Every structure is written in structure tokens, then in C-alpha cells.
């Protein structure tokens, strides 16, 4: 039942991310709800469930991207694993620590995607690169407490 709820939550979050209202965009940037869910699942569920959620979230995101490579599936799995390893080293009970982890991973995720885009020969102006890297990560971090609440309710 819980797994089914996680599945439906991911579908709803993906739908929300794909049709994010333009009134809620900041400099044309929207938060990465699927990344937040993938990372925060580690805090609330066991690792297997969290990893499955991360893979499914990555697949959902990749399904709507123009490039064929499943880079988000790979990255979300890596972030999920790293968060799991980190949570065994430090206490991740505090919401601020969780928020910081999401923020750092959002920065890393955006940096990897941006560098990969530049590496494949695309021209991205510095201003737009920084906008995508910083504002997107900050917005993702700012929205994360709401997804934490959702995950907490799902895990209860």
C-alpha cells in the first residue's frame, strides 16, 4: 500500500513539475520536485524503497526530456546512494540538515547537467548557466520542506 502511495505521489509530482504554473516560476525556473522526493525518500523509507523511488523519479524526468540518455535516472540513483551513505555517518534527523543536503545535491545535479550540456557542444551564456545552477538549486531547496512533509505522511 505504501509503495503504491509513493508511486502515485511520484506521478503527481511529475505532473506538477511538467505543468508548473508560470506564475510560480522564478526567472523562468521551476523547482526539481522529483529530485527532492528522490533524495528525501532516503530519510523516511528504507534504502531499497528509496532507491526504487529515485530510479522511478529519474525515469519519469528523463521520459519528458528531449535527450535520449537516461542521465537523471543515473544521477538520482547516485544521489540516493550518497545520501544513504551520508545518513549513516551523520545525523539527518534535523530538517535543516535535510534541507542542506537537498540544496547541495540540487547544486551538484544542476552542475552535472550543465557541464554535460556544455560538453556536448552546446553554447550556454554564463549568466544563464549561473541562473540555472543557482536559482534552480535555491528554489528546489526552498520547496523541499513541503516534499519532506509529504514523505513524512507517506512513511507514517
Amino acid at each position, binding site marked *: 500500500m505504501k509503495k503504491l502511495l509513493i508511486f502515485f505521489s511520484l506521478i503527481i509530482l511529475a505532473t506538477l513539475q511538467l505543468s508548473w504554473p508560470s506564475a510560480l516560476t522564478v526567472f523562468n525556473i521551476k523547482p526539481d520536485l522529483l529530485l527532492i522526493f528522490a533524495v528525501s525518500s532516503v530519510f523516511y523509507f528504507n534504502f531499497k524503497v528509496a532507491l526504487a523511488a529515485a530510479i522511478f523519479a529519474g525515469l519519469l524526468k528523463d521520459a519528458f*526530456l*528531449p535527450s535520449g540518455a537516461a542521465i537523471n535516472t543515473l544521477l538520482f540513483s547516485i544521489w540516493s546512494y550518497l545520501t544513504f551513505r551520508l545518513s549513516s555517518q551523520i545525523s539527518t534527523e534535523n530538517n535543516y540538515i535535510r534541507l542542506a543536503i537537498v540544496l547541495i545535491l540540487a547544486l551538484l545535479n544542476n552542475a552535472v547537467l550543465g557541464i554535460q550540456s556544455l560538453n556536448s557542444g552546446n553554447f550556454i551564456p554564463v549568466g544563464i548557466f549561473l541562473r540555472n545552477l543557482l536559482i534552480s538549486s535555491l528554489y528546489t531547496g526552498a520547496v523541499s520542506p513541503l516534499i519532506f512533509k509529504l514523505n513524512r505522511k507517506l512513511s507514517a
Partner: protein
Amino acid sequence: MFKLSRKTITSLLLIACLVLLVSIFSPFFKNSAQKTFKPHLSLIGLLKRECAGIIFYHRNMLDLGRLKYETEVLRRKLFDLREVEQENLRLKNLLSFKQKSPFRLVAARVIARSPDSWSSSVTIDRGRYSGIRRGMAVINTMGLLGRVVESSETISKVLLINDPSQGVSSIVQRSRQEGLVNGSLGSNLIMRYLPDDAQIMIGDIIITSELSQVYPKGLLIGKVVNIGKEFSGLSRYAVIKPAADLSSIEEVLVIIP
């Protein structure tokens, strides 16, 4: 017959004098009486109003609630009507454009946008069943939007021209100067590989060139808003403002070759 006694006449005269006196002094009486009674009457009036207010408060409160609800419903209806009006206008434009256009076009609606900030794409509600195939050009009434990069039975993915991986072979309409228009993820496009002596100026119209394998020749891309020199100093670039507003596309037309 009309003979009155002295006593009666005296009485009548007395009454007349009394009436006269009263009528002379009545304004003073009236004024003082009004002055005396005013506070009481005001107080009673106030109390009556307040009592009536308290008695009818609940009814007024219910009325207010009902009116607020009605206002909200009407406001929503007005909003819906405005939305329908705008949609009607857009669809009318699309239809007239479709009828005038020399291309075979399939109209589609945008159902989703790119889930991340590192690419610029939209998903449309038409796919292979409607004759849409990978590589087809996508436009709207304003100009070029992009090309289909993936198509399933019922939906297709369109890579917009402001995606950095998108390159459109284009020319300046006035001077026929050739260049390559690239996306930059921002609201503007960049026309690159322009020679130092390129015949291009601010305000020039940029259209697709016949060298393009994907796009039909002559599709409007946008207008030059700025010209600069590349970092290498070997060539120049032009900043193009797309004719179509890429951030708020709702309906598109796919060109079927």
C-alpha cells in the same frame, strides 16, 4: 334666536384669549419641548436602530455571504469567459493562418513543458496517428518554434529553437547573409558564424534558409536586437529576439512535408 347670555360671551372670550396666548407662546414651548425630548428620542432611536440591527444581523450576515458567493461565481465566470475569448481568438488566428499557409499543417496543443532548466522542449498532444514524424518543423502564427524530436502514437516531443542543442540554418531577409541560429536557454537566440563584414544590422528580420534540411525556407525566426564580436575576434554574432514567445506557447502547428 342668537341671543347669548353675558356669561357665555365671557367664557367664549376667555377661551379665545387662551387660544391666542397658546398660539403666541407655542413656538417657545415647541422649541423647549423638542430640546428637552431630543436626547431621549435620539437615545430611543439609537436603541431601536441597534435592536433592529441586532435582530436583522443574522439575516444581513447570510445575505452578505450569499452576495459574496455570487460575486465569486460571477468573477470566476468572467475569468472563464475571458479565457474562452482568448482561446477563441488564438484558434481563429491559427485557423486563418492554416488556411492561408502553403504548407500542410496539423494543429496541436502543448500539454507539458520541459521538466528541467537545461533544455527547452514541450510535449504536444498529437503523434504518429496524426501524421507527425520525427524531424518535422513546428511553428505557430508568430513564427518558427522548433522541430519534433520524438513522436509516439498520440504525443510528440518538440525541441524548441531556444534549446542550446538546436541549430537552425538561417539568412537575413534583407541582405541574404547566412548564419546559424542557436538557442541559449534564454529568451533570445544567437546567430553565429557571421563574417566580420556581414551585412546585418539591428532590426533585420531573420528567416530560415534553404540550406536547412529540417525547416522549409522562409519561416520567420525573429528580429536582430544586438550585434557583437565573438570572443575569438574572427567572427561576429547577432542576438535574435524570437518572433514567437517561446515561454508561453499553448497551440502549435506541425508542418507535414
